């Protein structure tokens, strides 16, 4: 089961080439034959679409009269001007959700890594088990959990005399301008919460993989050298788990930044994220150049952020 924990992309420095090769061989065709079908698939159905998008964004015209490639990059400027708030909002929501899932996921990943045998496997299964119920259904379940009248959280808390906790949290959100009317559901907070929940397993699994590899003797050594538990964590555990932290945050942040299901189901008209704009420009407004420009902007922004982040984290290989 441990294998289900997708290896942190950054963890292992390519082991293939570092292993001593015993015999010097001529160039072999075997690796190329193994790579060809899969890479061809990615080139045709991933790279080519990206290039199509780039070219679409530089076209002018409309649906009825067709499009002509003019190479006019103005559309990028228009897209930025018109949808700047949605772009910033998406990156902000995704950033907060990523930090929240790190805070929630780390203890669980650590706990699972410290278990042995069967209980460890069962816990891992439980982490991925939610995946098998459609995430749309699960996100709708948060609607019925968070709703103010008839919601399960409000009802349960009310049942034990703690209804004020729910109400006060709503008021707090209203004070912080995070909720228009003190409601918890359909507020920016609910959207961030939905994103956190939905991408939590993508955080936990890489964290678990790198914590599981941690050599227990290092922790013992730290203890023997009179490090307090806090010092041990700061100077041993945390640095060694960084590869998992980096890949977990990437696997959470990237999909969260492009997601629009959570903002549609749990948010209001003021929580529109950039994915939703791209979707409606493409499928409803049919402004293909604008939609393509927005797609490309989002991708470029994310690639730039990932690049800087990975550089700063000092990791080399990503998968």
């Amino acid at each position: 089961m441990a294998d289900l924990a997708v290896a942190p992309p950054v963890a292992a420095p390519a082991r293939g080439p570092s292993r001593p090769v015993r015999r010097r061989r001529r160039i072999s065709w075997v690796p190329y034959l193994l790579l060809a079908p899969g890479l061809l698939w990615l080139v045709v159905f991933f790279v080519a679409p990206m290039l199509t998008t780039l070219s679409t964004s530089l076209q002018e015209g409309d649906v009825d009269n067709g499009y002509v490639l003019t190479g006019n990059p103005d559309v990028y400027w228009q897209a930025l001007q018109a949808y700047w708030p949605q772009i910033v909002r998406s990156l902000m929501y995704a950033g907060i959700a990523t930090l929240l899932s790190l805070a929630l996921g780390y203890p669980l990943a650590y706990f699972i890594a410290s278990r042995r045998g069967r209980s460890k496997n069962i816990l891992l299964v439980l982490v991925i088990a939610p995946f098998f119920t459609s995430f749309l259904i699960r996100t709708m379940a948060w609607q019925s959990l968070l709703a103010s009248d008839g919601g399960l959280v409000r009802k349960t808390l009310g049942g034990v005399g703690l209804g004020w906790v729910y109400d006060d949290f709503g008021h707090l959100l209203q004070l912080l301008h995070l909720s228009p009317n003190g409601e918890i559901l359909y507020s920016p907070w609910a959207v961030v919460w939905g994103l956190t929940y939905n991408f939590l397993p993508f955080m936990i699994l890489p964290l678990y993989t790198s914590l599981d590899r941690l050599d227990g003797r290092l922790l013992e050594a730290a203890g023997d050298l009179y490090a307090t538990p806090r010092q041990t964590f700061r100077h041993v555990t945390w640095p060694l788990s960084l590869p998992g932290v980096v890949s977990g945050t990437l696997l959470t942040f990237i999909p969260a930044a492009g997601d629009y299901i959570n903002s549609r189901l749990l948010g209001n008209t003021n929580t529109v994220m950039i994915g939703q704009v791209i979707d409606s420009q493409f499928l409803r407004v049919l402004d293909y150049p604008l939609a393509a420009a927005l797609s490309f902007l989002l991708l470029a922004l994310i690639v730039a952020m990932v690049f800087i982040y990975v550089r700063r984290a000092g990791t080399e290989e990503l998968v």
Partner: protein
Amino acid sequence: MAWFRKHLLTFAAMVTMTILLLPNVVVAIYSFNKPNGRFNVELVRFSLDAWKHPCGTSGICDSLSLSLKIGLTASLVATILGTMIAFALGRHRFRGRSATNLLIFMPMATPEVVMGSSLLALFLNIGMSTGSLAILIAHIMFCLSFVVVAVKARVATLDPRLEEAAADLGSRPLTTFFRVTLPLVAPGIAAGALLAFSLSFDDYIITNFNASPNSITFPMYVWGAAQRGTPVQINVIGTIMFVVSVAFVLGGQLVSARRARAAS
């Protein structure tokens, strides 16, 4: 207080686990509900109606079977292609290695909405119609990278001495591969296939871009239902999927644990 500090980690872990599983519990509870209106949001009274007629609303089981078909085909193809790439990366030296790594990483670093819309743009440009085939192509594409990562992790832990031993004992390369290497990598392949299936089965955003009115997958059905009114059957199918897959995975573990014990 000391007791609380000692168990702080356990407590925090349990909180996260509860958050992860709570929605599944809610889905299960609401599958026994008989809502007043069209939306299944408030618990009204207990009923087994939906469980007796899981296909009771039109289209739901057609969409489920389409999703299962696409999920199985996509995960099969992605697993084969991905495993081949993982072996090339884990076992061979070749030129263009970092370009390959980048190409594998990029689909994981691209938001779904970008991949979905770009693929649609390509299909529109070359005049290919959207529908089940387009969805299948898209799913294989985005599952591929995840399979590569899962299998590669396993290939990296392989002890090359085992294969050398087989060769020393006179086994031919192909026999060694099927009798030694493949069984050792199998857990990684199984994990990759499982991940691919769940990603494909659950995908909405990319699918929505490339679907036609005749290819409504289960997540698309659920999304449509969310706008018009949510039949309780959705919860029944969600619960069945959850229970069956957990039983399937735990069962598989039990078997492999028993086999490991028998072998030692």
